[in-house]
């Protein structure tokens, strides 16, 4: 075999080709120009030119959440690199696999306060799974292998690669071999769960009287939603999902009791509080889930399965901890269950379901429609669900609209609900939707947003134009930073400090300027028709500006520092 001699820049591009990366998202600049030149001289890897580096990272993130594979972004040093930080932190909080390639000033200038120099290793360190810097061009294939391996294995996460410009110099060539395998002595993610612990967990599951399966983003990241569904069906247990776990268990299944937590369903939060066994699968007992930890589920024993041992017993002590990949652990559970041939106490389960169904009947996601002439935001999501037949990729921004989307769109499949859960990044929705649409051009991709969030990355409408990305943007326009306003209504006697968005742009003119379509819907009776019209324009990006009731709040809402069951169910009803 003849060995190939390539420059560092060519190695990077060649590695991406060999790795099977089809799209990368980025923005050029001085320190990255050798790499951009190498991109120019080939056509296997397509580069998408965004309008702001934050959007490049969110695009990579959207791609990763929809496919499970690492998304790749490429930026220059200094401001290019620092602009990616919010996107990297967003991916980090939600454990999304991603590789961010950052140009850096030449190694000879590092530390000199050179033009466009920032210490990207230092700046990114707290928000990455790992970061690597290239010390010699010949190391590039190995460094990139390591970056992809770390990003995609174990508990996934973003990896930054810092590449000084001289590492990519065109006239310095080194041997290139695509490294297929890598082993790190200091990093060995678990491959399976402890069989003895799994047996103990099953003992508890078989003797539980009021069990709840509480599953999170780990089910989706770990590709375990089929096995979760099988396990839940075999046992007949109710399942609640976290915000990150929606779609991990079918949203239309009768065993699904909705999302849990701060804006979780009444029945999910009640079931959690009264449970005698909680089976946490790929979830991390986030403070938006548990409410006050000392009042959390007083009568429950806890089984906690996670690939990351540090997530177990971090906030809530687990009685049976199991460290391992979700899919492998659930597989083992199912097989042990079959061997035993045992069933949980059917009579107790029947009672438990009777109770849950009563809670369901009491609330059932109701919202008031008689207090306003205007469109209710919840109704927009219900109509969207109907028109897209529940099959769309829904990429959300952050705010009330996000919670309504999570509550009222029922996801039957994993990887379809794409939102910034951990960091809560406004501006995430549109670029994430773009990353998904590029990969799934035939599927409906919707960005559910607010008039606040959309303006945080609105420049990407230009990118959508350039690459023909006909996503549908459904804007729940309440003319305010609704979620902030809701907190001010509830905690600050309605003093709406800076939560109004006065002087909104004319979205129709704005869309026209970018070459897109816009529809404004103001009346409830026009809602479905308006949405249908938008979705009928298959090849167009359509901005659907839905004027919704600006006074609406998201309910249920847990009472601060209370237990799971302490909730506001409406502006006047507290349980």
């Amino acid at each position, binding site marked *: 075999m003849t060995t190939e001699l390539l420059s560092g820049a060519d190695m990077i591009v060649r590695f991406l080709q060999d790795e099977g990366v089809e799209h990368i998202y980025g923005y050029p600049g001085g320190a990255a120009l050798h790499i951009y030149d190498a991109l120019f001289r080939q056509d296997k890897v397509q580069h998408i030119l965004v309008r702001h580096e934050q959007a490049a990272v969110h695009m990579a993130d959207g791609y990763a959440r929809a496919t499970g594979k690492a998304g790749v972004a490429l930026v220059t040093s200094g401001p290019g690199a620092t602009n990616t930080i919010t996107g990297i932190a967003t991916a980090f909080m939600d454990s999304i696999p991603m590789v961010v390639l950052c140009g850096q000033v030449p190694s000879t200038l590092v530390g000199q306060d050179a033009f466009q120099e920032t210490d990207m290793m230092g700046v990114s*360190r*707290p928000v990455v*799974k790992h970061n690597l*810097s290239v010390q010699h061009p010949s190391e590039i294939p190995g460094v990139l292998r390591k970056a992809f391996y770390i990003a995609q294995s174990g508990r996934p996460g973003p990896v930054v690669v810092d590449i000084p410009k001289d590492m990519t110099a065109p006239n310095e060539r080194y041997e290139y071999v695509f490294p297929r395998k890598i082993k790190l*002595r*200091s990093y060995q993610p678990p491959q399976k769960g402890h069989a003895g612990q799994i047996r103990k967990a099953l003992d508890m599951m078989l003797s539980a009287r009021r069990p709840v399966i509480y599953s999170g983003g780990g089910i989706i990241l770990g590709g375990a939603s089929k096995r979760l569904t099988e396990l839940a069906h075999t046992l007949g247990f109710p399942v609640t999902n976290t915000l990150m776990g929606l779609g991990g268990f079918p949203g239309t299944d009768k065993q699904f009791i909705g999302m849990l937590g701060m804006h979780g369903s009444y029945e999910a939060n009640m079931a959690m509080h009264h449970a005698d066994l909680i089976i946490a699968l790929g979830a991390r007992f986030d403070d938006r889930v548990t409410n006050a930890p000392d009042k959390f589920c007083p009568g429950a024993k806890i089984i906690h399965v996670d690939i990351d*041992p*540090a997530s177990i*017993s971090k906030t809530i002590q687990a009685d049976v901890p199991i460290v391992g990949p979700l899919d492998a652990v659930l597989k083992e559970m199912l097989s042990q269950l079959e061997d035993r041939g045992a069933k949980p106490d059917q009579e107790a389960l029947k009672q438990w379901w009777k109770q849950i169904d009563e809670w369901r009947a009491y609330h059932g996601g109701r919202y008031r429609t008689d207090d306003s002439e205007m469109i209710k935001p919840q109704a927009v999501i219900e109509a969207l669900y109907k028109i897209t037949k529940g099959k769309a990729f829904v990429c959300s921004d952050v705010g009330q609209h996000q919670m309504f989307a999570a509550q009222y769109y029922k996801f039957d499949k994993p990887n379809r609900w794409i939102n910034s859960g951990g960091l809560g990044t406004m501006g995430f929705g549109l670029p994430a939707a773009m990353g998904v649409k590029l990969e799934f051009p035939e599927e409906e991709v919707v960005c559910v947003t607010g008039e606040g969030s959309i303006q945080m990355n609105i420049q990407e409408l230009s990118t959508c134009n350039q690459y023909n990305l006909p996503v549908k943007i459904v804007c729940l326009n309440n003319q305010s930073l609704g979620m902030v306003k809701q907190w001010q209504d509830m905690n600050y006697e309605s003093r709406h400090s800076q939560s109004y968005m006065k002087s909104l742009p004319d979205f129709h003119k704005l869309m026209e300027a970018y070459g897109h379509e816009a529809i404004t819907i103001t009346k409830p009776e026009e809602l479905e028709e308006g949405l249908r019209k938008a979705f009928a324009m298959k090849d167009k990006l359509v901005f659907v500006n839905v004027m919704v009731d600006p006074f609406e709040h998201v309910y249920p809402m847990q009472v601060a520092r209370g237990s799971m069951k302490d909730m506001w169910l409406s502006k006047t009803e507290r349980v």
Partner: protein
Amino acid sequence: MRRILSMLLENEPGALSRVVGLFSQRNYNIETLTVAATEDPTLSRLTVTTIGDDKVIEQITKQLNKLIEVVKVVDLTEGAHIERELMLLKVKASGAQRAEVKRTVDIFRGQIVDVTSSVYTIQLAGNSDKLDAFIQAVGRTCILEVVRTGVSGIARGEKTLTI
């Protein structure tokens, strides 16, 4: 409770900053920290003393293990172990003081490693309590400068921390 966490990490640029960054980022406490390469130049040995209850120490250990460059972590305080710290100090020593300081150094089995007409430079090794006691004994007022290395430690007996 005071704990001594000892770890092996890849001797790579940036590895130390990750460990230190983790402690500040997660609001863990660092009392002392020492680090140097081992007999295998690709590995560093890092010892940190910290304070926390069992739950906190468990989290610190797990979070440290999560850092890609950390190869192994042990809590030396869980078993029998030896800990040592080295201290160098300059002490005022003139007139009658000279003999008095010398006597104290001898009692603590330290060494005077440099001398001028008015200053002794003293070297003392031991566990941290012993070094604290020495500072008490000579008295704050005559101490000019103190340099302590921080704790390093090793398990007693056959137990070793290797890869």
